[in-house]
C-alpha cells in the first residue's frame, strides 16, 4: 500500500514538474508485461532498485492477463500509446520486428560480440543483421519433478537417470483400485502441458533423430527415430500402464495432489509448487536416452525497446534494459520467480548450479535446444492430436506421426512463405 502511495505521489510530482515546465530531468517510462504473480513481484523489486540508482527516472509497470497481452501491445504501440520497454516471448520476435513494434538495440551499449560471449548461446536467436533486438533476464528449461514422499513409500532410492529406469520407477509408483482404474500415476503425461517439448526436443533426439531441419522450417521427425520416440511416449500409457492422459484433468494438478510420482515440467512451476502445503518434492535432470544422450528444451521471455520510445525516454529505456540484463537483476529473478539466469556468469556460480532445486534446470541449459516456433499453440495442437488419434481412435502410430508432420509442415510453410 505504501509502495503504491509513494509511486502515486512520485507520479503526481513528475506530472506536476512537467506541467510547470521546470528544468527537472524527471522522465517516466512505461514497462509492460503479462500478469503472473511472481513476475510482477520480481519486477516491482527491480524497478525499486533501478529507481533508487536513477532518481531522475520513474518506471511505470502495467500488466495484463496473458490472453489479452499480445492484442493490447499490438493495438497500443502503433497508436503512440503503451510501453517504452516491452516484454515478449522469444517466438514473437519476427512478428514484432516485421510490424515495426521494436527497434534494434544500439551496438555501443549492447555490443553483439559481448552479448554472444556473455549469454547462453540460445539467446543468439534474438540477433538480426549483427544487432540484438531484445534480451532476456531469465531462461527456462525442463526437469523431472518427483514426489519424495511417494518415492520413500515405494522404497525408491534415487530418481531415474535413464528412460528405462524411468519406466521401472514409474511402475513402482503406479496404484490401481480394485476395478483396475488408475488412482495414482507413476508419471504424468499430456501433450497439452510441457510434454510436446519433451517429445520434440528431447525424446526425438534421444532416439537418434533431429526433429527439424533447415533452421526449424522443415519437419524431420517422420523417420524411425521419431516413430521410436512416439512409441516410447504412448507406450507409457498403452504398454506399461503407468500413466493416463488427462488424469486429474491436468498433469500439474495430479502432481500437486500427491497423486503422481513424477512430472516433467518447466522451471516456472517451482514457485507454485512451493506454495502447495503437504507436498514434498525434489527435482532431477531429465532422464538420458538409450545411448546416453541428454537433451532439454529451453524457452525465454525477452525485453525490447519499442519504436514509441524516442528522445530522453529512449535513453531512459536503454538504461532500464541494461539494468534488466545485469547480473543483479538475474539473481533477483531467480530468487523470486525461479527462472534461470540468462548468463552463465550468474547461472554457473556454485551456489546456483549445485542448488538442489535450480541445479538440475541450470545443468539442463548446457545441452538445451530452443524450438523456433512459427505458431506455438498450433504446433502443439498437432502433437496433441497426434497422440489423441492413437489414444482415442486407435490409429497406427506411424500413420498418426505422418499426419502430424504434414499438419505441422503446413503451419511452417504458411508462416515462412
Amino acid at each position, binding site marked *: 500500500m505504501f509502495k503504491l502511495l509513494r509511486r502515486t505521489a512520485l507520479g503526481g510530482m513528475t506530472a506536476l514538474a512537467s506541467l510547470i515546465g521546470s528544468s527537472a530531468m524527471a522522465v517516466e517510462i512505461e514497462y509492460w508485461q503479462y500478469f503472473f504473480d511472481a513476475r510482477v513481484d520480481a519486477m516491482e523489486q527491480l524497478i525499486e532498485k533501478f529507481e533508487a540508482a536513477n532518481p531522475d527516472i520513474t518506471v511505470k509497470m502495467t500488466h495484463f492477463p496473458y490472453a489479452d497481452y499480445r492484442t493490447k501491445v499490438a493495438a497500443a504501440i502503433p497508436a503512440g500509446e503503451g510501453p517504452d520497454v516491452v516484454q515478449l516471448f522469444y517466438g514473437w520476435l519476427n512478428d514484432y520486428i516485421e510490424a515495426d513494434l521494436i527497434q534494434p538495440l544500439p551496438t555501443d551499449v549492447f555490443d553483439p560480440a559481448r552479448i554472444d560471449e556473455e549469454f547462453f548461446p540460445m539467446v543468439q536467436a534474438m540477433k538480426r543483421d549483427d544487432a540484438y533486438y531484445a534480451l532476456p533476464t531469465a531462461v527456462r528449461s525442463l526437469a523431472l519433478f518427483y514426489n519424495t514422499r511417494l518415492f520413500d513409500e515405494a522404497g525408491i532410492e534415487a530418481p531415474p537417470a535413464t528412460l528405462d529406469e524411468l519406466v521401472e520407477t514409474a511402475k513402482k509408483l503406479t496404484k490401481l483400485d480394485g476395478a483396475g*482404474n488408475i488412482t495414482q500415476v507413476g508419471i504424468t503425461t499430456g501433450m497439452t502441458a510441457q510434454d510436446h517439448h519433451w517429445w520434440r526436443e528431447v525424446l526425438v533426439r534421444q532416439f537418434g533423430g533431429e526433429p527439424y531441419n533447415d533452421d526449424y522450417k522443415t519437419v524431420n521427425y517422420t523417420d524411425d527415430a521419431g516413430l521410436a520416440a512416439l512409441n516410447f511416449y504412448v507406450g507409457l500409457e498403452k504398454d506399461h500402464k503407468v500413466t493416463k492422459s488427462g488424469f*486429474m484433468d491436468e498433469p500439474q494438478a495430479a502432481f500437486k495432489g500427491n497423486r503422481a510420482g513424477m512430472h516433467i515440467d518447466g522451471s516456472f512451476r517451482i514457485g507454485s509448487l512451493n506454495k502447495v502445503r503437504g507436498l514434498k518434492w525434489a527435482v532431477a535432470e531429465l532422464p538420458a536416452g538409450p545411448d546416453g544422450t541428454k537433451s532439454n528444451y529451453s524457452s525465454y521471455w525477452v525485453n525490447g525497446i519499442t519504436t514509441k520510445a524516442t528522445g530522453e525516454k529512449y535513453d531512459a529505456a536503454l538504461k532500464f534494459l541494461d539494468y534488466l540484463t545485469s547480473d543483479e537483476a538475474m539473481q533477483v529473478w531467480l530468487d523470486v520467480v525461479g527462472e534461470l539466469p540468462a548468463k552463465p556468469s550468474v547461472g554457473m556460480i556454485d551456489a546456483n548450479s549445485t542448488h538442489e532445486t535450480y541445479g538440475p534446470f541450470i545443468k539442463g541449459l548446457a545441452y538445451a535446444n530452443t524450438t523456433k516456433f512459427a505458431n506455438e499453440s498450433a504446433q502443439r495442437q498437432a502433437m496433441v492430436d497426434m497422440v*489423441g*488419434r492413437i489414444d482415442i481412435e486407435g490409429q497406427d502410430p506411424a500413420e498418426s506421426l505422418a499426419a502430424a508432420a504434414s499438419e505441422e509442415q503446413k503451419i511452417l510453410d504458411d508462416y515462412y512463405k
Partner: protein
Amino acid sequence: MPGYKNLSIRQKQIVWAWAFLAVPVVFYVVIRFYPTGSAFVTSFQEWNLLGTRAWTGLENYEKLWNDPVFWKVFRNTFAYLIIGTPFSLVISFVIAYHLDKTRFMHGFLRMLYFLPFMTSAVAMAWIWRWFYQPVPVGLFNNFLASLGIPQIEFLNSTTNALPSILAPAVWAGLGFQVIIFMAGLRAIPVTYYEAAKIDGVGWWTVLTRITLPLLKPTIVFIVVFSSIGFLRIFDHVFNMTTNNPGGPLNSTKPLVLMIYETAFSDFDMGYAAAQTVVLFTILLVVSLLQLWLLRGDATK
C-alpha cells in the same frame, strides 16, 4: 437559433425527435454497424494484427471451403443445435406443464429451476468438467466405479464429449425456458379448459388440442431463442476443454471457438473475419426464418 423559431410546430417536433434519436443512432452506428462492416472488409484481407493489411480477394473464403476443420466445426455447430434445441424444449415444457399444476412450494421450486440460468457459465462449466473426470476425482466415474461398472470416458472421447458438454448447457438454459413456458400457459384463457371439462375430454386431448396449439407463439420464440444460443455456444465448450480447446480432435469445437482461436491464438484476423461472416449469415437465415414463422402466426 433564429432558424428554429421560424419552423412550424410539426417541423419542431421532427427536430426534437431526431435530437433524441441521435443518441441510439450514433450508438448503433459506432458500436454495431461500423465493426460489422469492418469485419466484412477484413474478411477480404490478410492481417496478423501487428503488421499492415494486404488485400487477398476471396482467398480467405477459398481457404475456409477447403479446410476440413471448418466442415467438422460446421457439423458440430449444427449438432449442438439439432440435439440441444429439441431436448431443452421438451424438458422445459414437461417441467413447466407440471410446475404449473403444482401448488406446494411453487415459488421455491420455480426459483430452483431458474437458479442455474443466473449462475456464471464459466463456474458451471468447470464444476461439470470435474464431475466428468475419470477416477479418482470425477463424481460420476467414482460413483460408477463404486458400483463396479467400468468408467465412462466423458470428455476424452470423440463420441461422448459433445453430448457431455451439451448437457450442462441445456440445463443452464432450462430455467429461462421454463419461465417463458409458464407465462405462455398462464396466458391461455381458462374458459377453453372449462368447456373441455364440461364436454368430458381426456387430458391428452386437452394437451394436444388446446394447450399446444395455443402455445405456438411461445414455442416459436423459445425455439428461435435457444437455436441462436446453441449456434453461438462458446463458454461451456471453451471452459470444459481449455487444455485442448474444442477437443479431443476437434470433436466439440463450435464455430465461435474456431473464430476465437483463429483470431487470438493464430492471429489470422482475415481468416477469422471470413468465419465470422459465415456465422453471421447462418444467424441471419435463422432470424429471417423466425420472422417468417412469426408472421405466419399473426395472420392466422
